[in-house]
C-alpha cells in the first residue's frame, strides 16, 4: 500500500533519513521507534505527503505522491487517518466538532450515535463541548486518535499517540487500533513505549522498525 523506494530526506541541513526502502502492505501492523530527533515524525509526514522526499520516491497504491494534484492529495488524506504529534485542532471549535471534522469537511453526514460511541471509547464524553486548548495533553491525544479513525480510513498513522497517557488508557487506545487492524486497516505507530509494543506483540503479528544512524532497520527480538 505505502512504498518507500530509496527515500532520503533533509530539512536543508544534513541528511536526516538516508536510503530508506520499505513496504507497508495492506493490513499490516508496524511500530516505529528511535531516539528523539531521529526522524520518526518526519517519516510519517513523508507517508501522507506533507513532506516530499529529497531523493527517491514514496508511492501509495503505486502512485507517486509527488505527482498527485491537490485534490488527489486531499482524497488520499481522507483514506489515511493521522494522529499528529502536536494534534492539530481547530481551537475555536468544541472537541466533538473537531473529532467529526474529517466527516463534515468532506461533506459526509455525522451519525451522532457513532460519534458518541467513539468519544465514549476514548473517554471524552464529558469534555465534548470543551475547546481543545482546555484539554490536558493526554485528552488531546485521545481526541486526535478519535479524529484519525472516525472516517474509518484504510491506513492509520499515529505519532506518539500514548505519550501523555497512563498505562490503562494507553492499552485502551491500543485495543482500538488492534481492533481496526483486525478489520484490515494498516496501522503504523511511532512510539518510545516498549511496553506498548510488547503488549501489541502478544495480540497481533507486529513488525517493529527502528531509525538508527539515519537508516531504517527491522528491530530484532530484543523487543
Amino acid at each position, binding site marked *: 500500500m505505502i512504498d518507500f523506494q530509496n527515500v532520503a530526506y533533509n530539512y536543508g541541513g544534513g541528511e536526516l533519513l538516508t536510503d530508506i526502502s520499505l513496504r507497508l502492505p495492506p493490513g499490516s501492523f508496524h511500530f516505529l521507534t528511535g531516539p528523539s530527533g531521529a526522524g520518526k515524525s518526519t517519516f510519517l509526514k513523508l507517508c501522507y505527503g506533507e513532506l516530499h522526499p529529497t531523493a527517491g520516491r514514496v508511492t501509495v497504491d503505486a502512485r507517486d505522491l509527488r505527482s498527485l494534484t*491537490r485534490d488527489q492529495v486531499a482524497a*488520499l*488524506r481522507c483514506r489515511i487517518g493521522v494522529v*499528529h504529534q502536536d494534534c492539530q485542532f*481547530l481551537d*475555536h471549535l468544541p472537541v466533538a466538532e473537531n473529532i467529526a471534522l474529517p466527516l463534515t*469537511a468532506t*461533506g459526509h453526514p455525522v451519525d451522532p450515535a457513532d460519534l458518541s460511541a467513539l468519544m465514549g471509547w476514548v473517554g471524552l464524553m464529558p469534555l465534548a463541548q470543551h475547546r481543545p486548548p482546555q484539554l490536558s495533553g493526554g485528552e488531546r491525544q485521545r481526541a486526535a486518535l478519535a479524529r484519525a479513525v472516525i472516517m474509518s480510513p484504510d491506513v492509520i498513522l499515529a505519532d506518539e499517540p500514548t505519550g501523555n497517557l497512563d498505562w490503562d488508557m494507553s492499552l485502551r487506545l491500543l485495543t482500538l487500533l488492534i481492533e481496526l487492524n483486525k478489520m484490515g486497516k494498516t496501522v503504523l505507530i511511532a512510539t518510545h513505549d516498549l511496553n506498548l509494543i510488547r503488549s501489541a506483540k502478544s495480540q497481533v503479528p507486529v513488525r517493529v522498525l527502528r531509525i538508527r544512524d539515519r537508516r531504517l532497520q527491522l528491530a530484532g527480538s530484543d523487543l
Partner: protein
Amino acid sequence: MTRPLRPLIDLLAGDRTADRIVPPSGFTARLTSFTAGAMAFLVVFALALSVAAGRMAERWSDALAQTATIRISAPAAQMQAQTDKVLAILKETPGVAAARALSDDEQKKLLEPWFGPDLPLDALPVPRLIDVRETATGFDADGLKNRLAAEVPGAVLDDHTRWRRPLVAAADRLRLLGLMSILLIGGATAAMITLAANAALAANAQVIRVLRLIGSRDSYIARAFVRRFTLRALSGAAAGTLAGMGAIALMPATDQAGSFLTGLGFQGLGWLLPLLVPPAAALVSFAATRGAALATLRRLT
C-alpha cells in the same frame, strides 16, 4: 423532504459547519460590511446622477433638434403684416418643417407664471411669437437672421435652444462620468474585499493547515471564506442601498421639468435600478474572495 429541492435548500441554508470552520472575526466582518455599505450608497448616487443626466440630455436634445422661436416686436397696426411676412419667409426657408404663430391664449399661458392670469394682453405691447419647427437637418440660422433683419426689422430669431448644445454635451459627459464612477467603485470594492479576504486567509493559516491535513479540498476551504465575505457584502450593500435610496427619495422634488438639481433621482421603474446594487456587490465580493482564496491556497502547498 423531496429530493429535487435539496440543492436549492442547501444553497439557501448554507453549510452550517462550513461557516464555522473559520473562526469568527468581528472586526473585519464589520469593516467589510461597512465598506460594502458605503460603496453601495455611493453607487446609488452615481446611478441617480447618470440616470438624471441621461434624462436631461435626452430632453434637451429633443428640444434642440426641433424648435426655435421668432419674436416680432412691432406697433399693433403692423403686427399682422409683419407676422404674415415672417411666415412667408419661413415657408421658403429650407430646413423649416413648420411655422406657426402662437395664439393670444397660448401667449397668455406662457406669461402667466410671471404676470398672473389677469394679464390684459391687448393693452400691452407684447411681442408676437412664432414657433418654428426644424427638419432633422435644421436651417441656416445666420442666413435666416440676416434675411429677417433686412425684410422684417421687428423680427428677431431667437434660436434659444442652441445655447443648450454644450449643455447636452455636458449632460452626456456627466452620464458617462457617473457610469465610470460606478465601475471605479465596483473595482475599489473588489480591491478592498480582496485585501480583507487576504488578511482573513493569512490570519487563519493554521485553520487552513489543519483542514488540509484532514483531507479538505481547496474548494471546500475557499467556500467557507467566500460565503462569509459574500454574505457580509450583500448585507452591507443592502443597507447602503436602502440608505442611498432613502436619501434620494428625500431630495426636494418638483414637477417643473427644468432644474437639474431637483431632477436628480429615479422615476417610476427607475427605482428598481438601485435594487441591483446589493446582488452586484455580492457578485463582486464572491469573485474577489474566491480569487483571493484559491490563489492563497495554491500558494500554500
